[in-house]
């Protein structure tokens, strides 16, 4: 018995070391990147001899960078609105309903999430040209919206599957037609899933590079701008821009995680 406990402890310490090493692996690069943004020199790399805030001042006074931020946020919001409406609608169709061709419909629904990035980007590029959509904001919004639909749909379907059917039946018995029952029972019940997945879509769209790159016009989104700057060399200015983007996305992500956890707990209680 003692032997077993000893063995387990050895295992646990070994695994804990691996876990913390992995934490280092995922955090250290980002931390280094943030530190570099404060270096008072044009050259990225160690050692750092003096520090400055000039790169950040530069970012917040650079009209082009600020415009790009706004442009990316606008694209993220618009595409998320579309994804959420369409994704929820498809989820309502697919969840708990048996009909001919349901399996195929489901497969079609998840397709955009499974297509590798580059292939999805050029397929959208070709299709946009065929439809006559010019590269630019509209094309990016459309591509992001289509790409993000499966994520909304899967999350909403998961939530929908836990909706107590009795509530809908009660509403119907009390005389509500299906539409009113949906608006007053189903939709409020889905709110946490819809909000959670829309935050996820916002982040996906804001962070997306490959679709924005191939469908963009002359105005870059933020990842495309960083990519273009990187092609011409590393500079602490890029670190400052990337850090601002990082703080923004991580903050939104953490907030959303806490929010969904809380609402899940509430609805379980």
């Amino acid at each position, binding site marked *: 018995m003692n032997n077993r406990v000893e*063995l*387990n402890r050895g295992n*646990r310490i070994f*695994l804990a070391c*691996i876990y913390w090493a992995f*934490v280092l*692996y*995922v955090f*250290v*690069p*980002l931390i*280094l990147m943030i530190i*570099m943004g404060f270096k008072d020199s044009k050259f990225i*790399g*160690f*050692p750092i001899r003096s520090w400055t805030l000039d790169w950040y001042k530069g970012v917040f006074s650079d009209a082009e960078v600020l415009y790009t931020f706004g442009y990316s946020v606008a694209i993220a919001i618009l595409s998320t609105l579309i994804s959420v409406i369409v994704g929820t*609608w498809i989820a309502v*169709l*697919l969840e708990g309903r048996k009909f001919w061709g349901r399996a195929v*419909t489901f497969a*079609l629904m998840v*397709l955009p999430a499974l*297509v*590798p*990035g*580059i*292939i*999805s*980007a*050029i*397929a959208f*590029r*070709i*299709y946009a*040209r065929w439809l006559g959509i010019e590269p630019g904001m509209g094309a990016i919004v459309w591509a992001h919206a289509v790409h993000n*639909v499966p994520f909304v749909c899967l999350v909403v379907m998961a939530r929908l599957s836990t909706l107590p059917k009795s509530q809908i039946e009660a509403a119907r018995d009390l*005389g509500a*037609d*299906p*539409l*009113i029952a949906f608006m007053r029972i189903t939709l409020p019940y889905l709110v946490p899933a819809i909000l959670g997945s829309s935050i996820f879509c916002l*982040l996906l769209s804001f*962070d997306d*590079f*490959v679709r924005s*790159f*191939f469908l963009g016009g002359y105005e870059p989104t933020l*990842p495309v701008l*960083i990519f273009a700057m*990187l092609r011409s060399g590393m500079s602490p200015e*890029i*670190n400052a821009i*990337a850090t601002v*983007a*990082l703080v923004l996305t*991580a903050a*939104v*992500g*953490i907030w959303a*995680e806490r929010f969904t956890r809380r609402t899940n707990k509430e609805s379980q209680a």
Partner: protein
Amino acid sequence: MTYDASVRKDSDGHAVASGPRPFWGRVANWGPYRAFAVFLTASPRRQFFILAAFPILWLLTQHLGPMLQMLRVSLIDAYPVAPGTPQEFTLDNYMRFFGDSIFWMPFFRTLTFAAVFTFCTLIITYPVAYFLARHVSRKNQMLFLLLLLIPFWVGEIVRTYAIMILLGNTGAVNLVLKWFGLIDRPIPFMYTSFSMGVGIVYLTALYMLLPLYSALEKLPQSMNEAAADLGAGAWTRFRRISLPLTIEGISSGCTLVFLISTGFYATPVLLGGPSTTVFAETIAGFFHVAGDEWPTGAAFAVIMFAAALVITGVFQKLMYMLRKGDTR
């Protein structure tokens, strides 16, 4: 069928005396809405068609449409199609792939890289997921998982850049190695398959970690205890219990990571060098020019997608058979 809104009630069903009619009550009794609702719900069949029409249309035109259009463009001989001229269908675009090693070399390189990187991701994240699911108390699990999730909300480009800084000639790894006196001059990590691997594993780790974690979490602790009581060592328990029972998680994680890593474009461009050109760069090359090369690019994309699907399909089948074999 009428929603009686004339009597307003509170949550316990008691009538509330006065005040304006509730919003939904007014909607329900509004003439045009009534007509609309009756039209929608006249029969279950009609109701279903109205519910299904838009999603089906969307899925066909938006999800399937781009794929089919890509397939069509890959088969035509001239693009953009000049008005008035009949289009000829041809397989020439596909034939170009086999004709030149600068095309199929990156293709096989991409598949090899994707397979190797997927395997590395699995090896790295399995112990992490195992630790999270088995050795961390329920209360802390979410906290520990959340800690790992934070970096994954950060975008692909930013994280790729972070790896560039880490591995550069004046980067942190070289600095540390120099510090300890292990090297005199910096090791050129960047622009090699190594730097690309570090970057891609960094980007995909989460997609492996989550399926593994959810598979391991479902595994009953009692099984491990029983095996331990019967004298099985840690390695035997892992090989005979945890591994077979988490094959489903392994298989879906690997499939996801493989598909994702074949599709990376920016990461190989930024972290790789001339000797590590991947097929995504080859495909993208056809789309930088005006359009006459698009059919070839489309054909190459179709080849790559088909290959990735076949490989992941065979892999899943193998894993399925392995699972079947083990339970017997």
